[in-house]
C-alpha cells in the first residue's frame, strides 16, 4: 500500500463541489483524497476525472471555507474505504464513519471500499426466511424475508418512523434459532429528534447494544448525504458477512439522499433527466439497494428497510418510481387511512412484496397463507371499486353484493389494517378468515373447495 502524498498550492479552481488541481502526484481515478482547508479541517473527496496534467476532485462535503492558495490535498492512493473491526454495535457514527459518541475509534482490522462491490449473482442465495414483523398488513399480505430490500413509501407527516422502529424492535424469525440479529440505523438528513426517538426506543426495548447508528443531521451538508448510506452499508456488510449476523438496515429518509444527488448533479452541470434528477439516479440507487441479500455459504444476511417520503404524495415521482423499480416491493403508507385514524396506515393495494412467493406457504409459513392473502387482495380491490361507485351514486344505488363488499372494506381497514398491538401470523390469518366470512361464498374464487370448507363454511374447525 503506497503512502499518502500531500499537495499544497496545486489548486487551480473551485466550482461548487469540484476542485480543479494540477496533478502533481501519481493519482488514479477514484482515489480518495482529504481536502484540508486553511482552518485545518479535512473534507472527504475523490478524484473524479484526470488527465496528464490536471485532475478534478469531487468534494463530498461542504467546500465552504476553502480557497485556492491555502488548501492542501492529501491523496490516499486508494479508493474511499472504511476501517472496520469488532465493536461496531452500540456505537454512533457520522456520515463518514467517524465515532461521534465520544467513544474510541474502531480497531481497524480490515478496510472495505465504501462503494461496495456487486454481489456475484451466481453467488446469491435466495432470500426465503420469513421475518415476522407482527404487522398484519406486512406479515399476512406483503411478507418480509431475510435479505430483502423492502422500502416504506410514505408521505410527510405520516408515522413511518414509528412503524420502522416497531419493526426493528419486534422483528423475529418464527423458529427460535434466530441467530445474531442486529440493526443499523442510517439517518440521512434527519432532524435530531428523529434520530433521538429511534435511539430512545431501541434503548427502552433493550436493543441498543445490538444497534449501530450512522447519522447525517438535517443541518449537516447535503453532499455528505451521499456518503452516509455507503459508510453505513459498508459497516452492515461487515456485520453480516464477516461477523455472520442478520442485519436489518433502516435508512431514513432516502428522499433527502435523492435531493442531495440532484443538487450535486446540478453543480456538476450535468444534463438532468426527469424533474431535474440525474439520469443515473436509477443506477446510483441500485448501488445502495442491491447491497441487500444473502450469499451462498455465508450465514449472515443483510435486509434493508429504507424509508422515503413521496414528494407531493405522488408515487409516480422519480424518487419512489425509481426505487420501486429496484427494491423487492414496497409498503405504501397513505394519508387517507391516517386521517381515518388507522395505524399503521398501510395502503395494501399499491403495496407489494416480491419475495413473498418464495418465503410463504407450505414449508415456510402456512400452506393456506398465500391463498388467503390473494383472496383478501382481490376482495379489498373489489371493495375499492365499489367505493368509487358508491361515491357516484350513493350506497343505496349499489347492488346487494357491492354493499357487502363496502362493509368488508371498512371492516378490513378497521380491524385488520389497524392494529394497536403486535399480532402473530396465526392471529393475522385468523382475522383474515373471519373478515372473509362476511362475504358471499360464491365471491371467494381464489380459495379452493377445501379452504372454503375448512375456514369459511365450517369455521369451528378453523385453526
Amino acid at each position, binding site marked *: 500500500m503506497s503512502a499518502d502524498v500531500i499537495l499544497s498550492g496545486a489548486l487551480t479552481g473551485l466550482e461548487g463541489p469540484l476542485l480543479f488541481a494540477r*496533478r502533481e502526484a501519481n493519482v*488514479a*481515478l*477514484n482515489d480518495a483524497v482529504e481536502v484540508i482547508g486553511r482552518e485545518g479541517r479535512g473534507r472527504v473527496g475523490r478524484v473524479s*476525472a*484526470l*488527465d*496528464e496534467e490536471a485532475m478534478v476532485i469531487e468534494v463530498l462535503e461542504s467546500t465552504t471555507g476553502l480557497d485556492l492558495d491555502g488548501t492542501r490535498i492529501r491523496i490516499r492512493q486508494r*479508493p474511499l474505504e472504511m476501517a472496520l473491526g469488532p465493536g461496531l454495535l452500540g456505537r454512533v457514527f457520522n456520515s463518514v464513519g467517524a465515532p461521534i459518541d465520544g467513544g474510541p475509534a474502531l480497531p481497524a482490522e480490515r478496510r472495505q471500499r465504501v*462503494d461496495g*462491490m*456487486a*454481489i*456475484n*449473482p*451466481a*453467488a*446469491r*442465495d*435466495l432470500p426465503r426466511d420469513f421475518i415476522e414483523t407482527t404487522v398484519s398488513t406486512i406479515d399476512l399480505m406483503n411478507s418480509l424475508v431475510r*435479505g430483502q430490500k423492502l422500502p416504506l413509501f410514505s408521505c410527510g407527516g405520516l408515522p413511518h418512523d414509528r412503524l420502522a422502529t416497531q419493526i426493528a424492535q419486534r422483528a423475529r424469525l418464527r423458529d427460535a434459532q434466530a441467530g445474531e440479529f442486529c440493526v443499523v440505523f442510517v439517518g440521512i438528513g434527519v432532524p435530531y429528534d428523529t434520530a433521538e426517538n429511534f435511539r430512545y426506543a431501541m434503548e427502552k426495548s433493550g436493543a441498543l447494544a445490538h444497534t449501530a447508528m450512522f447519522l447525517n443531521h438535517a443541518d449537516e451538508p447535503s453532499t455528505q448525504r451521499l456518503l452516509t448510506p455507503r459508510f453505513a452499508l459498508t459497516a452492515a456488510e461487515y456485520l453480516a458477512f464477516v461477523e455472520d449476523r442478520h442485519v436489518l438496515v433502516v435508512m431514513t429518509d432516502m428522499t433527502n439522499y435523492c435531493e442531495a444527488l440532484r443538487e450535486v448533479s446540478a453543480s456538476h452541470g*450535468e*444534463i*438532468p*433527466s*426527469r424533474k431535474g434528477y440525474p*439520469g*443515473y439516479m*436509477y*443506477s446510483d440507487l*441500485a448501488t445502495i439497494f*442491491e*447491497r441487500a*441479500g444473502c*450469499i*451462498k*455459504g455465508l450465514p449472515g444476511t443483510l435486509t434493508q428497510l429504507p424509508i422515503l417520503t413521496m414528494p407531493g404524495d405522488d408515487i*409516480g415521482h*422519480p424518487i419512489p*418510481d425509481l426505487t*420501486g423499480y429496484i427494491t*423487492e416491493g414496497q409498503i405504501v403508507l397513505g394519508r387517507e387511512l391516517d386521517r381515518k385514524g388507522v395505524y399503521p396506515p398501510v395502503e395494501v*393495494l399499491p403495496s*407489494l412484496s416480491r*419475495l413473498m412467493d*418464495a418465503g410463504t406457504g407450505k414449508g415456510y409459513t402456512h400452506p393456506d397463507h398465500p391463498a388467503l392473502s390473494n383472496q383478501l*387482495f*382481490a376482495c379489498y*380491490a*373489489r371493495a375499492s371499486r365499489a367505493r*368509487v*361507485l358508491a361515491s357516484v*351514486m350513493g350506497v343505496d*344505488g*349499489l*347492488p346487494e353484493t*357491492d354493499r357487502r363488499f363496502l362493509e368488508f372494506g371498512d371492516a378490513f381497514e378497521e380491524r385488520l389494517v389497524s392494529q394497536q398491538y403486535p399480532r402473530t401470523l396465526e392471529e393475522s390469518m385468523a382475522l383474515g378468515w373471519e373478515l372473509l366470512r362476511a362475504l358471499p361464498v*360464491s365471491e371467494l*374464487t381464489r380459495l*379452493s373447495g377445501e379452504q372454503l370448507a375448512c375456514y369459511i363454511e365450517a369455521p369451528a374447525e378453523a385453526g
Partner: protein
Amino acid sequence: MTQAVIQWIGGPVLKARVSEPFQIHEALAVGEQRLLGEVIQLSGDLLTAQVYEDTTGLKPGDPVVGSGLPLSVALGPGILGNIFDGLLRPLSEASGHWFQPGLAAARSGQFRFEPGVGEGDELAGGQVFGQVDGPGPGRACLVPPLLSGRVRSIRPAGTYAEDEPVLEIEDAGGRVHRVAMQHDWPVRRPRPAAERLSADAPMVTGQRILDTLFPVARGGRAALPGGFGTGKTVLQESLAKWCDADVIVYVGCGERGNEMADVLDEFPHLEDPRTGRPLMERTVIIANTSNMPVAAREASIYTAITVAEYFRDQGLHVALMADSTSRWAEALREVSGRLGELPGESGYPAYLASRLADFYERASRVKALNGEEGSVTVIGAVSPPAGDFSEPVTSHTKRYVRSFWALDRGRAQARSYPAIHPLKSYAEDVDTLARWWQLQGNSEWREYRRRLLGLLESQARLERMARIVGKDSLPPEQQLTLLAADLMNEGFLRQSAFSEVDRFCSPKRQTAMLRLMMQFIDLAGEAVAAGTPPAEIAAMPILRTLQRLGEEFGEDDLERQSEVASEIGAAFNALNDHKEAADVG
C-alpha cells in the same frame, strides 16, 4: 496488437493517445488489469473508449491495447445451461462472492467431439462439421459464417477444450484456417442467414391471455411495458419456463441480482414439459444487474441476441427475454451524455429509435446458412417512468414490435395476473396464426378471440354506463354481458405463475376451457332471452367451477373437463325446468 496510452479518464469513459491505427468498435484491454473496453470514437490521434468494468485505479499513462477485432463473444457448446456477465464471461459460484473487475477468465470447458465431415469435404460458412456429445439442444459445431473451403484435416472423436482447433479448412485462396468447437462473432453485427422467412406459427407460451388473445409469432417480436410491480419479470420468467422454444436466452439487463439467482435456483429443478429434461439445459442467463457497470449493460443486449442467433443458426427455435430494454436505453443515454452528445427527447440520444429498430430487427425466422430453419423470437420488457407509455422508449418500441402486451397497474393491484390489459394490448399476426390453430383442431379460434375481445370491450363501456345509471338498471342482456366478462377475466385470463397446476396451459387445454366458457355464455344468453333474470345465472353453482377451471383442471384432467360440459348443460336444463314450473305455477 496496437497500443495507446490513457490521456484522460472520467468514469467509464477514457481518451487515449494512439500511435498506431485503431478501428471503431475495436475491443480493448485497458490498464494493468486488462479491463475490457471498446473504441467508440476516433479523432486525430485520440481515441475515445468506454470501459465495461469498474475503472477505479486507472490513470493517465496506463496502457491501452487493441485486439484488432470488434467487440466479440466466443460462441460454442459451453454456453447453454450457464450464467454469464454482459460480455459472456462466466459467472459461476466459483467466481467468488463479489463481482470484481479483471475477473475476465475465459471459459475453457472440455467437450466430447464427434466429427461429422471428412478430409477433402467442401464446407461453407454455417455448416455443421461435428457434434458435441451430451444432453440438451445446441450441440452442433458450426463453421464460422464467413469461412468456407475444403477440409484439410479433422480431429478424431475425442475430448477437446472448447477453444482447441479440431478442424483445418483451406479456403479458395489457399489459406488454412483452424477452427475450434467455438468461434468468435462481433456482437453488434447480425449473423448472416440464407434467407429470411415470414411468420407462420405462434411461439406457444402456455399463457392463456397471450396464446389466445395476443400471440407472438415464432421469430416475431413482442414488448411488455409496465410500471414497477406489474408483472414484467414474472411473465418473462414464465415464458422462459414454458414456451415451446428449444433454447432460452434470458438477459437480465440492469435489473435485480435476486431475480438472476431465482432463475438459477429454479430452472435446474423444473422439467421442460416437452422434453422432460431440466429447463436449465436449454437456458442461458446473461446478467448485468443494476449495480454492475453501466457500460456493460449497453453491450449485454447485443451479446444476448448474438448468442440467440448462434443457436438459431443450428436450426433451433430460440426465445430471447430481455428484462429490461429500458435499462439498456438508459445506459445508452448515460454513455451518450458522457460523450457530450446533444440530448434529444427525455435526454436520450437522437439515435435511440434506430438502435431499438436495429435490435428488434434481429428477431427473425430464417433459413440458416446450412439450410435448417431456425428462429429468434424477441420479448422485451419496457419499464416506463411512472408507468407512462408515452415516454420515448415505450413509444419507439411500439413502432417496431408486432405484439404489444400492456401491463396494467389496476389489474396488478387486484392481484389479477398476468396483469395484461386486454384493451390496450394487440397482436398483428393474428390472421397468419389462425391457420396454425386450425391445424391444432381449433378452427373457431379467431371467432372465439373476436367474441372475447368484444365482450371485454362491451364490459368497459357498460361499466362506464353503470356508474351513471346503476348496475341494476341495465337491461338483462347487458347485465349478462358484465357477468360473462367477469367470468372470462376471472376464469380464463387470470393465470397464476405460481400455481403448479395452472402455470402452464397447453393450447389443447386453452381450447377446451374456452369452449366451456363459450358454452356457458351461449346458454346463459338463451336463458336470459327466455326471461331468466341475470341474478339467477349469477347464483348458479357451476359458475364457481368455471371460475376455478384453470386451477382445478390441469393438463392431465382434460377428460374430466368434458364432464363439465354436461354439467353446464344439466345446470341450464334444471334452471329452465325450474322456470317453466314457476311459469306454470
